[in-house]
């Protein structure tokens, strides 16, 4: 198989590309739209928005989710907010500035045209959500309020207390249910996609398993949209929901879709530290806390040791004995430095033995000064629900003791490769939201995930999918075709094989083993030796999994061990590709930090004072490309490169000093 990675970026000036593309895109007349069936997998912000909007346009939509209701998709857990270049604060924001911040935040590893379009439609998203009744925070004059987020020096983040994702998703879910009621969308909850069906090389259907009855069946359509989220759970512990998985994306990859930049994973700096082996997931504390909280550790290891044993109270540590790590290293951005940079600073401090949590892995996020300045009631109004959440989990009152935080896996910038139309290299297979790779480069800025999910679903795909559909005769693929029968048989065989192993180890024990390996060697910092070890170890774990996993019960009823096993089996394959990507990218950029590639004394930028030693060091001459990986059964994946061309911005050293 050979690939030409044509990103299909329209010609013309950057700020006119999207308008021009809309004008040049094909249209389908209203009477014909209802002849097309579109399968949407995933019902989060990207999938839910796409399903609702495509149905409004007149297409027939079938929407699938593994949860019991589309309202539970993991977009719901996003706390902080959503960016939009409204410039309601009159602080100098613009589409261009949002574009620039996002492309710089992504460490110059994303496509200019995609990012510009994202910034452009960001303003429409806010309008749409308000019209749906999303209760964004408001000022007393009745107008919308904003706050600041990491990686930006303007206030462009719209929020709904600490539940922005929930409110946006409920708006989207209501729009979806509206279309269900009108008959345009048929919803399939508790249904998991287990394969994509290709007819003559085009994605024309999916194979699903009903999670209640265990029945495996297929659905045929004229195009498939996957909005199936990210793969953060490859690390076992992450802030993702327990069910988040790579299965849909990986099954597509096995059918020939290229997986782009899998090594770009985001480690979020403000999570509640790990407390023990039994732990099933990590909890994020919104980045918005960094607006008022100050991150510090003691300057000396001795004081840190006393704090770990709780021999002294953090308030008793004098100002001159504290190291406000971000304020010291990045004075102009301070505690609002981007996520990758903040996470590494916390890791560094803990690696030096200055961590303050009982495990040694934690730094303070302290509201003492903000409480003095603003009063406790203001802090309560701004962050009350987050403080409450912290207290429930950590068992400590954050109004009395500073919070402790540590970085955790949170978001994955990598995903299936897509062109400007959000179509993968498989014709007909479109990928939206976190599941694609397109907009965040090597690092995502805070409050940009919600923006991208909704941009893709509400405003991009409804236009661009017509470019594909217009070339197709509607209704051609049938579930009775051989391709469907074959894919169903393969899926059934796999499910039966899993059940038949009847070994000794639980699914979780394999998942935990894989996760630890990935965190140690493909997590916040990576090096050649560690990645090579993973590439050797992962197939061994996979081998043991397929011989020794125990899945009790049968496949013809609800069986949660079977569901988990299928997902872990796919993580065990996908993880290897992730390590190959991390190994081949011999540079540090954004969330991908290769220990061999960091700034050091002697570098011109270090000597001139632009960056400190130990920062991520990019190699634009050799790695300014998207790495898109082709799956090959039983062999190492094959790398295909899409060069990144920067016409408007000049990739520079990413300094937040």
């Amino acid at each position, binding site marked *: 198989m050979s690939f030409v990675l044509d990103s299909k970026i329209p010609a013309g000036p950057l700020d006119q590309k999207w308008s021009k593309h809309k004008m040049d895109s094909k249209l389908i007349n209203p009477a014909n739209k209802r002849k097309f069936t579109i399968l949407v997998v995933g019902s989060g912000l990207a999938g839910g928005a796409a399903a609702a909007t495509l149905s409004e346009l007149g297409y027939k939509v079938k929407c699938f989710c593994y949860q019991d209701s589309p309202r539970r998709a993991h977009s719901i857990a996003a706390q902080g907010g959503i960016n939009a270049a409204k410039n309601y604060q009159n602080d100098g924001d613009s589409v261009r500035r949002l574009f620039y911040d996002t492309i710089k935040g992504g460490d110059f590893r994303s496509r200019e045209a995609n990012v510009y379009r994202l910034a452009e439609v960001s303003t*429409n998203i806010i309008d749409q959500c308000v019209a749906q009744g999303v209760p964004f925070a408001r000022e007393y004059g009745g107008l919308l309020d904003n706050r600041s987020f990491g990686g930006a020096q303007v206030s462009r983040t719209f929020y709904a207390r600490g539940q922005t994702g929930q409110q946006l998703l409920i708006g989207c879910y209501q729009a979806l249910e509206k279309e269900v009621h009108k008959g345009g969308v048929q919803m399939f909850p508790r249904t998991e996609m287990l394969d994509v069906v290709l007819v003559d090389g085009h994605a024309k259907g999916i194979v699903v398993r009903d999670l209640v009855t265990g029945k495996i069946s297929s659905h045929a359509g004229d195009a498939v949209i996957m909005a199936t989220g990210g793969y953060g759970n490859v690390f076992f512990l992450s802030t993702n929901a327990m069910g988040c998985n790579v299965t849909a994306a990986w099954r597509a990859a096995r059918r020939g879709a290229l997986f782009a930049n899998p090594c770009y994973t985001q480690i979020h700096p403000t999570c509640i530290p790990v407390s023990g082996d039994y732990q099933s997931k990590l909890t994020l504390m919104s980045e918005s806390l960094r607006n008022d909280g100050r991150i510090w550790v003691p300057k000396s290891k001795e004081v840190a040791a006393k704090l770990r044993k709780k021999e002294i109270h953090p308030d008793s540590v004098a100002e001159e004995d504290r190291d406000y790590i971000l304020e010291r290293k990045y004075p102009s951005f301070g505690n609002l430095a981007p996520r990758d940079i903040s996470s590494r600073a916390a890791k560094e401090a803990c690696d030096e033995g200055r961590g303050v949590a009982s495990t040694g892995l934690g730094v303070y996020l302290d509201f003492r000064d903000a409480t003095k300045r603003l009063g406790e009631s203001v802090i309560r109004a701004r962050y009350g629900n987050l403080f409450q959440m912290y207290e429930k989990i950590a068992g400590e009152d954050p109004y009395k003791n500073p919070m402790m935080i540590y970085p955790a896996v949170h978001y994955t910038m990598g995903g299936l490769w897509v062109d400007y139309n959000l179509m993968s290299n498989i014709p007909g297979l479109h990928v939206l939201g976190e599941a694609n790779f397109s907009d965040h480069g090597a690092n995502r800025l805070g409050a940009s995930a919600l923006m991208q999910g909704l941009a893709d679903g509400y405003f991009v795909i409804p236009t661009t999918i017509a470019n594909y559909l217009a070339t197709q005769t509607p209704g051609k693929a049938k579930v009775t075709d051989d391709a469907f029968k074959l894919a169903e048989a393969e899926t059934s065989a796999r499910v039966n094989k899993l059940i038949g192993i009847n070994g000794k180890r639980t699914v979780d024990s394999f998942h935990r083993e894989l996760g630890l390996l990935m965190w140690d060697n493909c997590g916040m910092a990576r090096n050649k030796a560690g990645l090579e070890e993973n590439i050797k170890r992962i197939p061994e774990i996979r081998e043991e999994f397929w011989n020794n996993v125990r899945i009790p019960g049968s496949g013809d009823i609800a069986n949660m061990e079977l569901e988990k096993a299928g997902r872990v089996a796919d993580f065990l394959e996908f993880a290897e590709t992730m390590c190959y990507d991390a190994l081949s990218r011999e540079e540090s950029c954004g969330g991908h930090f290769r220990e061999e590639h960091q700034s050091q004394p002697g570098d011109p930028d270090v000597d001139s004072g632009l960056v400190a030693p130990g920062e991520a060091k990019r190699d634009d001459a050799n790695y300014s490309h998207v790495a898109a990986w082709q799956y090959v059964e039983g062999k190492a994946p094959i790398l295909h490169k899409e060069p990144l061309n920067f016409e408007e911005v000049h990739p520079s050293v990413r300094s937040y000093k």
Partner: protein
Amino acid sequence: MLNLTLKVWRQKTPQDQGSIETYDAKNIPEEASFLEMLDIVNERIIESGGEPIHFDHDCREGICGACSLTINGVPHSKEKGITSCQVHMRKFRDGDTIWIEPFRARAFPVIRDLIVDRSAMDRIIAAGGYIDVRTGSAVDANSLPIPKPDADAAFDAAACIGCGACIAACKNSSAMLFTAAKVSHLGHLPQGQPERDKRVLAMVRQMDAEGFGNCTNQYECEAACPKEISVDHIARMNRDYTVASLKEQLV
């Protein structure tokens, strides 16, 4: 470490009778969450050849609304303002016996063990719990100022996570608080006014059709709600419903 006895509802399929089974839960770390305690117990059940206890869960941070356990007779436990996944073992004592059952209601059939079918709630929303606005047709967000108190009141109602605890807590299995929260969320906003009458009539009728009971003002729903949504919304919905049905008869 805690040593506990669990009394758990086990029911393999929707058709099965179901019964309470007893499990020992030994050496449970106090820092673990309630669901992590069940994970530990399940690992042991699987290792000893049994089938694990099935329960719904996903985000495990109190926002998705998937988890739905009745713990010692109270949906999400007797602790106020939290979901099942936010219950922590440090709240229990060594030697405790804990009863774990599904969210029970006529309109919530059991799927397996502690998992129930709550799709009736989606159908109530589908009947009218939205503002009918097409993507792309919205005006500028700031062209419609909304007084902060109205926006805040709308938010308080919109905080509902659709878990169904209100329904499981009610002796009548009434869905009034769930339905009223949505009616109130949209009814507090100027955008929600054009469909206000139509919405409340359609949602209440769907609620009745699904087999949910009536409200007899016991307020168990508010007490069980993890987001502490007020029963005042029910009173508001009743007013809206009365007005709307009168208008309907007069037209």
